[in-house]
């Protein structure tokens, strides 16, 4: 049985965990002071040695990303933290920032120093006022303490940190769309190359990292790269936040070493809700192909999930039991992608629209068996044909659900509509059954 390893979440149970005093009680900002006495390149090397990989979905090695920033180029460098957490099912960064915004600020100070950035931004989604409030206060408190602004930690280095609040666009979680949005344009992805490390914000070298990635840095500096890499698996090092939601007895956040399995997490969480069985689940949000009970023992690390045919993504474990209609679930996700497609690339803009029409027909009993092949054909023509991965993500749940649940799709045709009772899936239904 894999033991949980609360690091980022270690002090969330203290009432003032989000304040400067609460953060400093457990050694807060000591890692930044330590890092600023090191050579910047040594900080990058230390993060490389730890094996930390991006926690926003792609899993790119964080230290390597920092190392791509050209040095001695006499250009401004920027650090941008992606706090636009919007992938359906993903709910780790918001509780982290609500409970401990200072760990992100400290990580930003360290990362900015390493990549020689004098300006950093946090791009946070706009639909979370209280999280924005907590971050704004943490930034102001860090300025007042001399950790941000001129001559931070009396190191001779300057660092400005700006909280930038989005306004409701999933696409801005894609790093190049985020940069366009931050520059004051509609959030639409850019063609790469050039990558942000060469031409990012204002066409200057830029690192874009996820909240959890940057927040993991202070503990790595404080405890050393060996401490971090002792957790996890061969190529997926360290601890991470797994977010369990849906038809389970107890949903919530679980900080564990990479490689823990859903079976282990479910055991800790008290299993699927009483009287029901697991039907399907996502390992890392709605853009990752769905799994069934057959993957309960798949190690939830980058390699393990990929080998089983999906992606670790954001580690958003959304659990659905046998009361759930898979066509309804997939239709709703597809409507989301259609709505959030920025419209720049034709395969995604037009393709997601057609996917919705066909899925709607199926769910409403107007579909035919041939529609399944049409769906798969459309998916093939969307996958890999646009600037960014939004369209790719739209195809994941469709292709994987047809693979696992073709019979259920067919049942919608033969039954001339959805055979499920949607009320049975609600939390209210289970509360009544339990009463």
């Amino acid at each position, binding site marked *: 049985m894999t*033991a949980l390893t609360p690091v980022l979440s270690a002090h969330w149970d203290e009432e003032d965990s989000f304040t400067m005093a609460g953060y400093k009680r457990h050694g807060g900002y000591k890692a930044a002071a330590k890092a600023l006495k090191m050579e910047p390149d040594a900080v990058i090397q230390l993060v490389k040695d730890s094996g930390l990989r991006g926690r926003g979905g792609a899993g790119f090695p964080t230290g390597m990303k920092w190392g791509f920033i050209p040095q001695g180029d006499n250009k401004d460098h920027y650090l941008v933290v992606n706090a636009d957490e*919007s992938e359906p099912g993903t709910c780790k960064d918001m509780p982290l920032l609500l409970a401990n915004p200072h760990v992100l600020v400290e990580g930003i100070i360290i990362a900015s120093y390493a990549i020689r950035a004098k300006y950093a931004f946090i791009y946070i989604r706009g639909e979370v006022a209280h999280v924005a409030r907590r971050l704004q*206060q943490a930034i*102001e408190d860090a300025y007042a303490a001399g950790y941000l602004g001129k001559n931070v930690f009396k190191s001779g280095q300057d660092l400005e940190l700006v909280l*930038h609040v989005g306004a409701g666009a999933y696409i801005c979680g894609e790093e190049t769309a985020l940069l366009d949005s931050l520059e*004051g344009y509609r959030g639409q992805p850019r063609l790469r190359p050039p990558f942000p490390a060469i031409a990012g914000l204002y066409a200057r070298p830029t690192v874009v990292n996820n909240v959890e990635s940057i927040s993991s840095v202070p503990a790595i500096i404080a405890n050393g790269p060996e401490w971090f890499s002792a957790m996890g698996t061969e190529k997926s090092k360290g601890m991470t936040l797994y977010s369990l939601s849906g038809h389970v007895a107890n949903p919530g956040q679980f900080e564990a070493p990479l490689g823990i399995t859903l079976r282990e997490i479910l055991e800790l969480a008290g299993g699927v809700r009483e009287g029901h069985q697991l039907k399907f689940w996502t390992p890392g949000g*709605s853009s990752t192909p769905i799994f069934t009970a057959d993957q309960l023992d798949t190690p939830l690390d980058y390699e393990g999930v990929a080998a089983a045919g999906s992606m670790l993504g954001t580690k958003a474990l959304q659990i659905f039991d046998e009361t759930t209609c898979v066509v309804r679930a997939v239709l709703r996700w597809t409507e989301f992608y259609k709505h959030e497609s920025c419209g720049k690339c034709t395969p995604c803009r037009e393709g997601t629209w057609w996917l919705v029409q066909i899925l709607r027909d199926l769910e409403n009993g107007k579909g035919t068996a041939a529609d399944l092949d049409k769906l798969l054909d459309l998916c093939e023509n969307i996958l890999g044909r646009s600037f960014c991965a939004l369209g790719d993500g739209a195809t994941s749940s469709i292709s994987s659900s047809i693979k696992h649940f073709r019979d259920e799709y067919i049942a919608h045709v033969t039954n001339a509509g959805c055979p499920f009772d949607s009320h049975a899936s609600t939390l*209210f239904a289970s509360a009544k059954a339990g009463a």
Partner: protein
Amino acid sequence: MAYSEQELSVMDSIIARYPRSRSAIMPLLHYVQSLAGFVTNEGIEEISAKLSITTAEVSAVATFYTQYKRKPMGEYHVGVCTNTLCAIMGGDEILEGLKEHLGLENDGVTADGKVSLEHLECNAACDYAPVVMANWEFYDNQTVQSAKDLVDSMRAGKPIPPTRGPNVLPTWKENSAVLAGLNDGHANEGVQAGAPSLLGLRLSKKGSKK
């Protein structure tokens, strides 16, 4: 109605945060929304003048992002998450219940101007599903009845406070100012974390004590 000196100086301070002025367009849109309750033509013209870009360029940004409204919203803007997980856990029934209770369609506003209603996409609180947001504050683990009670409390002028948020639910305008990056002094109110956020930590502590 022209903007006051004080309002114009807030706009200047927002622009001063950024290395390049155009980056201030989003907080400026949040700010003009906080003054009128929505993004007015006047607001677009002022931003255009401040940033030396055309009104068409400002409008292009304002209409891309769903949180900027081009017509007045309710004093309390209620959003029900109907993305897959929340919808299945009860969000669809909550939205239908509220539509019927308030006599509104999606994006509608009650005649008294108190409540507006919108269906939302995932709001990053899936372990608290089904989730309702009001003026972008969290209302966790909602039922059809609790959501109806919430909007009733708004119409009575005494909104039920958020589950994880400030002690008193701010108005739509007040919270638009928070999104513009203006500190309203309420950061220290409310819980640091709800029970689901703490579940893993509590189990870990229980396990290590054994």
